[in-house]
């Protein structure tokens, strides 16, 4: 152990180990730290040194080779080729080949540089002194004096009216920018506040419930007990513009479930079901995720985002989770042809709570 201890300068001829005396002579070089230092193989054995040089240059060379391989992969591998790798599974061959070659090209430069530093550059620790961050008293005094002179000659202290009006102007000048942000929402005609828009949906008396993707009307007889159908208002496809379509969807989306009428413990309104068919908003009253997990045995509806749970057989009241309000119920009936239609819009606000809500609705 003690023979590899090196507290005297190395004189093996290794290129990077500079002797103490040389360091002391060079201006700007730091003194050597008084710590134990172990010579490396590369410091003492010229063969090890040569080997390290070879290793470093091989890594740089391999990096260059990887760049060539990358270009080959880019040209040769078709976009849809798939490769199966152990532990990883089937992945795109082009992506994998490009990632590995490009990654190695980069990695090997780093590996070469670090190996070079560790094996061939000096590993003698040196000491640099620190200085307190604080400026010395003289300079501080001069700075303070300059400030004083500036204060006096400018009249900053002498004319408080200038000072105060300037501060006032500076405080107000960002306001136009903030005011200009007002039209981030171009308020539609007839609307004055956001909450007005949040309180209405597309549902109207007599509007049919249609399936959410194919827009087929839903016949009451077609829904089995225990079944669930995702529905939207029949007018939704007519809302042409994508914006309004998605916005309308985000509020009007609903689900229809059927249970035997005696399973219904309570509803949000008398006779809002149709022979055990109930319709509820699909948008969670917590933060607005669409709710999609329904357990027909317990009639519980679970939000996959934050696990709020509602009992659809009992007015969709909250039985668990972070939601505070029950899911709004859509009063429904059937039209002459036996298709489900809405009796009115939701009577309670759909989606997340907000400041302007006046009641607790539960």
């Amino acid at each position, binding site marked *: 152990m003690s023979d590899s201890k090196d507290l005297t300068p190395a004189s093996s001829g290794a290129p990077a180990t500079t002797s103490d005396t040389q360091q002391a002579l060079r201006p700007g070089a730091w003194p050597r730290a008084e710590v134990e230092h172990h010579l490396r193989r590369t410091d003492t054995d010229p063969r090890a040194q040569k080997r390290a040089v070879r290793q470093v240059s091989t890594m740089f060379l391999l990096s260059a080779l990887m760049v060539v391989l990358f270009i080959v992969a880019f040209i040769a591998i078709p976009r849809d080729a798939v490769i199966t790798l152990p532990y990883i599974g089937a992945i795109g061959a082009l992506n994998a080949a490009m990632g590995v070659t490009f990654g190695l090209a980069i990695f090997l430069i780093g590996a070469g540089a670090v190996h070079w530093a560790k094996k061939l550059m000096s590993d003698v620790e040196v000491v640099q002194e620190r200085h307190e961050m604080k400026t010395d008293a003289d300079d501080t005094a001069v700075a303070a004096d300059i400030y004083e002179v500036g204060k006096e000659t400018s009249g900053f202290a002498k004319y408080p009216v200038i000072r105060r009006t300037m501060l006032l102007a500076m405080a107000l000048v960002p306001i136009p920018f903030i005011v200009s942000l007002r039209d981030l929402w171009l308020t539609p005609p007839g609307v004055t506040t956001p909450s007005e828009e949040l309180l209405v949906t597309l549902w109207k008396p007599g509007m049919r419930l249609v399936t959410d993707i194919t827009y087929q009307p839903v016949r009451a007889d077609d829904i089995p007990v225990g079944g669930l159908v995702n529905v939207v208002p029949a007018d939704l496809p007519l809302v042409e513009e*994508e914006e309004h379509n998605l916005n309308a969807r985000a509020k009007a989306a609903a689900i229809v479930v059927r249970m035997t009428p005696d399973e219904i413990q309570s509803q949000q309104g008398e006779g809002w079901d149709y022979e055990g068919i109930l319709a509820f908003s699909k948008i969670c009253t*917590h933060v607005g995720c669409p709710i999609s997990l329904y357990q027909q045995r317990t009639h519980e509806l679970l939000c996959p985002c*934050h696990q709020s749970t509602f009992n659809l057989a009992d007015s969709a009241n909250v039985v668990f989770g972070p939601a505070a309000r029950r899911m709004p119920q859509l009063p429904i009936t059937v039209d002459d042809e036996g298709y489900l239609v809405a009796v009115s819009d939701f009577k309670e606000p759909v989606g997340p*709570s907000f400041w302007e809500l006046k009641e*607790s609705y539960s």
Partner: protein
Amino acid sequence: MSTSQISPVEQKGAGVATYLDERVGSNGFLRRNLNKVFPDHWSFMLGEVALYSFIVVLLSGVYLTLFFKPSMVEVIYDGPYIPLKGVKMSEAYDSALNISFEVRGGLLMRQIHHWAALFFMTAIAVHMFRVFFTGAFRKPREMNWVVGVSLAMVALMAGFSGYSLPDDLLSGTGLRIAEGIVLSIPIIGTWASFLLFGGEFPGTDFISRLYGIHILLIPGILLALITVHLMMVWVQKHTQFPGPARTNNNVVGYPLMPIYMAKAGGFFFLVFGIIVIIAGLVQLNPIWIFGPYTPDQVSAGTQPDWYIGWLDGALRVMPNWEIQAFGYTLSLNILIPALVIPGIITTLLIAYPFIEAWASGDKREHHLLDRPRDAPTRTALGVMAITFYVLLWIGGGNDIIAVGFDLSINSVIWALRISLIVLPPIAFVITKRICLALQRRDREKLLHGRETGQIMRMPNGEFLEIHAPLNEEERAKIIAKPQVKPLPQPPETDSSGVRNPKLKKDKRRAKISQFLFGDTIAAPTGEEIAHADEHLAHEVIEDAPVMAEEEALQIAHDGSVLESPGTSGKS
């Protein structure tokens, strides 16, 4: 001075240096900084990982902007991915699919960008832990801690705004939740939401607005903060762990030129290379599987990126408190987890260095790092905070846990609610005890030496373990233990009998000081150490041959081989 040949290339380089120097005086800067000394420790590379992965994020991000179209205009997909053929989607999602399937290298760049972002966030978190637990935030580095915490928060926004851009089902669901949170803000909530989204959710403005924020505003802020962060590290010089020759007034390590140019420069390529290889082999965020966003669909088991998980977890475990009064609604079930808790955590993080400085009254500069055990209360507070954080994070995956372990989701949530209140204090106590125990062991080792594992049998039949003095390194670490004394109880009256007008305040400060710095194991005095050294020098027979049992027994019976070491060195 060794004079090596100057090559023509170097001559050109010297010409450039002179050209620059004559215009901006750059040689003086080089003279002062080229051989700046940096200390070596693996944990100092954590911040480097963060910096380098940020550079990778920037580079890959620039590439992605060439192909991504931040538009919510509706298009019909007509690309090579069959399952989505003919599906209506936004142009943003369409272009993200195009990047993933048609642009060669596009998917690789997308995955580099995302993986590098995950590396960035992870490195920031672990780097922050390192800085906290070693007390690197103490004077003069308090301001840099504040910059660092701000960086962590802005980086979080960078991540969230980034994975919300492709407009796939997962990202849209994240935005919906964010919108729900904005809606819950008292008084201005609905207005804020409508201004952000240009009306109702989701509208058609948001992706392009978010894009500007994600590629211009946030990276600009990050770059500015990182610049300040690094400049302060440079000016204040790096902290170092205690060790031989290391003092509070020096830096022991290797100079920038050439060691750290090679090591740190090389490390950039290592980090970059590893990210690229992972991005080539390990898929993440397969947006094509999620489908385009529509506000009435969601998939079960959706998870945000890990760094958002704790916020989502907080939303999940919060009880459903909502207050209705005077015709208005206050959604505490959203405000507390989404805004109040993150706000408190950020405030405490930012305030901590100042609280410690205030409670200790310590005005000295600190360049030697604490070992976590030597600041038991700080370490315990840190572990307590991490416990709280990890529980929230687990909460973000409560559905996965419930399914994976076949538990009821309700019991998982209740277990988390209780744990969030009970476990952090327990973690505090346990950590503090462990720290104090480690301090005791350090003291023990310093005074009685380390255990060598060699057993010696005394003439009287007693077995002893031989102890040896610590090596320089260990010794220096233990001796460097900081001696922070809690503030004394304030006097009720001053020397002339006047009542202290700030008595209550001072008492409170002394109490906090006692809490933070009161519990510690007294470090051995110089005298004790000198005595112990002398004692150990007599005792150590470390080079005594290890004998076969029989042989050893014989000799011990005989009692003639080993000098009686006198008093025992056992602990």
